[in-house]
C-alpha cells in the first residue's frame, strides 16, 4: 500500500496495523523497514520546521512504479510505503518503507531499492525554516539535492 499523508503518523503503529490486516501470518520470515525522520540540525543550522512539497498525481504514479519494480526484482509478500507532506516539526517521521518476504535477502534489498529510488527520483521537495548560529531571524532554504545512498 502507498500513502501520502498530510498529518503526522506513527510508523511503528502503521507497521503493526498493516501487518495485522495483511493476514499472512506464518508466511513471512523477514520484514525489513526504514524510517526517515526530520532532524533538528542541518548544515550547521537549527531547523525549526520543514515544508514538504509534492506533485499530486505524478508523485503517486512514481511511487507506484517504484514498488511495482521492486516486486518484479524480488520475491515480496507485501510492501507498505508512507510519505509525509506539508509542514513538519523536528523528530516527526517523513517516510516509512516496510517490505515483507519469506527470506531476508528479498526484504532487505527491496527496502533499500525503494528508498534509493524514492530519494533520487520521487517528486518531493523539502524547504527548511532555520536559524543560523548567533542569529535571531528565521530563514528559509530549499534543499539542493539528496545525497546518494550507495
Amino acid at each position, binding site marked *: 500500500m502507498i500513502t501520502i499523508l498530510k498529518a503526522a503518523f506513527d510508523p511503528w503503529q502503521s507497521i503493526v496495523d498493516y501487518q495485522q490486516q495483511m493476514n499472512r501470518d506464518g508466511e513471512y520470515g523477514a520484514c525489513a523497514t526504514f524510517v*526517515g525522520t526530520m532532524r533538528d540540525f542541518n548544515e550547521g543550522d537549527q531547523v525549526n520546521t520543514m515544508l514538504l512539497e509534492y*506533485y499530486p498525481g505524478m508523485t503517486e*504514479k512514481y511511487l507506484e512504479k517504484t514498488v511495482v519494480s521492486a516486486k518484479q526484482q524480488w520475491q515480496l509478500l507485501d510492501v507498505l510505503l508512507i510519505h509525509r507532506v506539508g509542514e513538519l516539526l523536528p523528530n516527526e517521521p517523513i*517516510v516509512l518503507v516496510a517490505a515483507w518476504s519469506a527470506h531476508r535477502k528479498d526484504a532487505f534489498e527491496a527496502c533499500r531499492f525503494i*528508498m534509493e529510488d524514492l530519494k533520487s527520483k*520521487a517528486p518531493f*521537495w523539502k524547504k527548511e525554516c532555520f536559524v543560523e548560529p548567533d542569529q535571531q531571524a528565521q530563514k528559509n532554504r530549499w534543499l*539542493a539535492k539528496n545525497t546518494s545512498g550507495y
Partner: protein
Amino acid sequence: MPQADNEHSMSIKVLYFASLREQFGCNEQQLDSAGIHTVADVWRLVSSGHTFKQSVLHSVNQQYAELEAPVKAGDEVAFFPPVTGG
C-alpha cells in the same frame, strides 16, 4: 464541438514546483500549443529572461521526459528542481 473545449484542447498546461514555482512566481500556466513540438520548445518559451542556479527536471503527463520528448495540445508539462524527498 463547443468553443470552450476547442480552446482547452489548443493549450498546454505548464506546472512549476518548489524553488522553480517561487522563481516563476506561479504554480501553473496555460500556453498556446501553436509552434510547440517538444519539452525544449516549452522550456524556451517560459524560461526566457530567467537564470537557474539548479538543474531543471521535466515531465510530460506526470512522467519524466527528455527535452526532446514530444508535447501536444492537452498535455501537462512540469518543471522542477532536483528532488529531495524521503
